[in-house]
């Protein structure tokens, strides 16, 4: 029926247009005319009133009325879809309350449609999905049953993210980022290598957890970023073991930690002690040696180092005070 109607009226349209003489626009016009005329004939045929328009089509009742109480919700919302008020049998309200009233209802509520919903990920759905995905998984090695064992055997950890979204393209540029984490204690580094490594990586090392994180995102593909991260780790390791000739020029200012030997504090305390004649008699150098061996001086040394290396706290200051008093015998 529809196509016959369209054919008849297409010919009508064409005769009209050929009179006007515009062929090209005529094509589109014929198509449009066919549709409108068709709908009007439909109205006449299917309409309930002989004169006047068809009665207005009612909005219809939402399908929540027909939903059984024990229906399978995972079939109603199988995938992530926007909120559909007629398919969700919950009396939700959302939005700023109408004046002296309540938040607006769910029908036609844009606020509910805008936000992401997780109606497709109810616990029942997740259980079903896990069951369905189990065949794709392999078994976990039985020897790796604790976290420590995993860390011990596989100290390098790689993390990357996959993105899924609805759109014309499945690619997402953020998927190329690779994070590589490794504990520095797993790497075989001596003191010098450790210090050099820390200087080389700078911010990427977290002191509290002893984890070095290398994030690579400069290459366009994830595989390339992974290779780059591995290369960086290897290079860092080897570089930190090498000793360059210019490293001998390391000054006191480059040191990571404060060491008391040969510092101004040592000189000062020794000079002070000599001046106040607490030291014994003898040559300068021997006296200094002797002083350094004394217990109070050692305690003083500890307290100064603690103050400088750790965060200043009440306890450290008190310890320093005690040490000073002991040394100066005050």
């Amino acid at each position, binding site marked *: 029926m*529809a196509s016959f109607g369209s054919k008849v009226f297409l010919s009508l349209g064409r005769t009209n247009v050929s009179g006007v003489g515009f062929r090209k626009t005529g094509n589109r016009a014929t198509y449009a005319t066919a549709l409108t005329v068709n709908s009007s004939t439909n109205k006449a045929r299917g309409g*309930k009133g002989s004169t006047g328009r068809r009665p207005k089509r009612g909005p219809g*009742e939402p399908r929540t009325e027909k939903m059984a109480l024990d*229906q*399978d919700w995972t079939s*109603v919302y199988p995938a992530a879809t926007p909120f*559909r008020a007629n*398919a969700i049998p919950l009396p939700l309200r959302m939005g700023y309350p109408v004046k002296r009233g309540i938040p607006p209802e769910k029908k036609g509520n844009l606020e509910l449609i805008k936000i992401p919903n997780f109606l497709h990920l109810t616990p029942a759905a997740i259980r079903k999905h896990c069951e369905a995905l189990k065949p794709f*998984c392999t078994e976990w090695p039985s020897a790796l049953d604790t976290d420590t064992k995993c860390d011990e055997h596989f100290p390098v950890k790689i993390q990357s993210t996959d993105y899924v979204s609805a759109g014309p393209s499945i690619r997402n540029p953020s998927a190329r980022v690779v994070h590589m984490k490794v504990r520095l204690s797993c790497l075989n580094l001596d003191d010098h290598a450790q210090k050099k490594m820390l200087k080389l990586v700078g911010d990427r090392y977290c002191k509290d957890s002893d984890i070095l994180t290398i994030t690579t995102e400069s290459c366009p593909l994830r595989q390339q970023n992974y290779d780059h991260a591995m290369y960086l780790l290897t290079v860092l390791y080897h570089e930190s073991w090498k000793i360059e000739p210019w490293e001998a020029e390391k000054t006191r200012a480059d040191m990571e930690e404060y060491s008391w030997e040969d510092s101004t504090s040592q000189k000062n305390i020794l000079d002070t002690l000599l001046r106040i004649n607490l030291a014994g008699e003898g040559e300068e150098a021997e006296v200094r040696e002797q002083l350094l061996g004394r217990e109070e001086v050692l305690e003083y040394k500890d307290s100064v180092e603690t103050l400088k290396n750790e965060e200043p706290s009440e306890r450290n200051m008190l310890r320093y005070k005690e040490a000073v008093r002991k040394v100066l015998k005050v």
Partner: protein
Amino acid sequence: MAAPCRHVGHHIQKNGRFLRININQLFACRSFGLTSALQQQATDLHKESKEAIIIPRKKSWNKEAVLEALASTVQRDPTAYPYQFQDDPYLSPRTSVEFKLFSLSQESGRAAAKYFVNSNPKLFTKDFAEPHIPCLMPESVALRLEEVSQEALEERISLRKVSAAVEMYDQLLQSGTAVSMETTHKLLDLICLYCDRDPVQEGAPQTEDREEEEEEDGRRKPMGRRVTDFLKFTWKENNNAERIFNLLPERDTRCYSALIRGMVKHGAYAKAFNLYEDLLNNRLSADVHIFNALISVVPDVRKKNNERWDLIAELLNQMNEQKVRPNLLTFNSVLKALRQFSFLAKTFSPQILNEMKALGIAPSLATYEHILTVFFYKSASSGPSNMAVLQDVLTELEGTSFTCQDPNDVLFFATAMKLCLDNKDLELGYKVHSLVEVGENWRLLGDSYQQGLYYGRFFNLLCLMEDIDVVLKWYSRIVPSLLYPNPQGMKNLLQALDTDSRLDLLPTIWKDIKTLGHDNKVDLVEELLSLMARDEHSVEVQESFAACALDVKSVFDGRPKKEWSTSSLSHISILLLRANKLQKAWDMLQLFKDKNRVPSGALLSSFLTACRCSASPQRAVELVQLSAAFSLPTTPELAKRTLAEFELNDEQRSIVSEFEAAPEKEE
């Protein structure tokens, strides 16, 4: 994470040589080239007491396997609208007519969009999709090659431009270029398929020529014919296909095949047979497609049964002689041709099935459909014993998943369900339905018309045979997502409700009837009203019935053309009375007068009773007057009752006593 460790270890090993060279720079205590990974490998070698860590091999799967696995967790949602429509109660179809209209309009919109994209390819060059989706990009529909050459001919053939291809071929012949056999085959196939006319471009206006040709043929069809009839053309004498065929220096089986199949498709049956004779005379062997085509038109060529069978047998014998292997369609065409005469069909169908088995061809659903029809509908004696055939068929097909191999496959389920309905066999009906639910078999239910037939018959069977709870369960499952019941189906449902005395559900059924658009079917509405008005029910049920009756009335009022009938008016009045809606019932009486219908005496006496309950004597008097106006025989009794039961003042009394006396005097 074995991979990174192995990776690191590998690096260490590679650089080991450098480390050895620099050994004097290393600290003495440092062991050579060890990271914890290598340590691990070393310990693995040395300490077998430690448990070996076996990393299992990664499984591989194809791209869609994960999605398919997740999709298998989802079942059909019974309340959902058909998936191609918007999920909104306003925008989805409510009746079968709307369903057809909406799906056709969607398709036509898509075709229009495709047409615009293809005719303006320069506007659609940017490709957003990643990975590339070829069907969204413009296809080339315009010809690119203009010169006279074989490539240009091939291009026209692939773009399905029949007349242009024929022209190009003629030009090639004139210019003396030889056209290869392959291309000639393709050209003949093209011409015969489209019956020498250009195929209709989707969405484009038809050409002038086609319209004129239509008129020439005198194929002015009346309104209401289906689209497919327009596309059936007749094979004209000496059209291009025949002409080219005759011009060919040598004709082989494929050329004959193209022509014979074209003739069969477009109605020139006798010619097809003549051409086949020609082929035999030229001592060529036909192929299986030719035989299939010829067998399928045997009924049109021979009129008498035994002649038909002889011809089929002859064709089959020739097929055997020429060592052409029959395929599924051969057997299906034989069965289809034999449908007309059941005796022979009955005799030969087991033989046909055996042959198929011997050849290793699995029968398709079309085969079974032909067999079922032959055994049940064309035979004189069909009885319950024949259900055994259907039983056997279903047992054999149980759990099998089908693909469509024959266009007639889609008729199987509808026919099987019709059989179950006619023989009122519920168990077999359930078996057929379970076959539909296996795997992808729902695709073989056919288009919306066939699907409507199948589900309609299934639902009718359920209404007849099952008790009401099961019926209602199926009703909620298949209506309206899979089936828009027709008025007969709704009537069956009403019958089922009546049988199991669940008449309290009638108002909900009325709502569904209204949504389905069957509220203009007078007999259905009348049956509904009579069921409601027949018996007395509890108070809430009466209330709901009265509301329903008012709804029916408003529907009738909205349609001034439709005629009220006496019974519907009286039913509505009774229902309103029972629910004590006296004023509305009184309006109904006025309607009686307006529509020139006569109420029954019983109705008026029940009115009187209601008036007594509400103690309105004026009404009673009016009632008596009304009854007299309709010249009902019960007027005197009414008058008597009024006088007896009501408190009337003198005026009223006088009026009423008039009527009590002599009804004959009043006209």
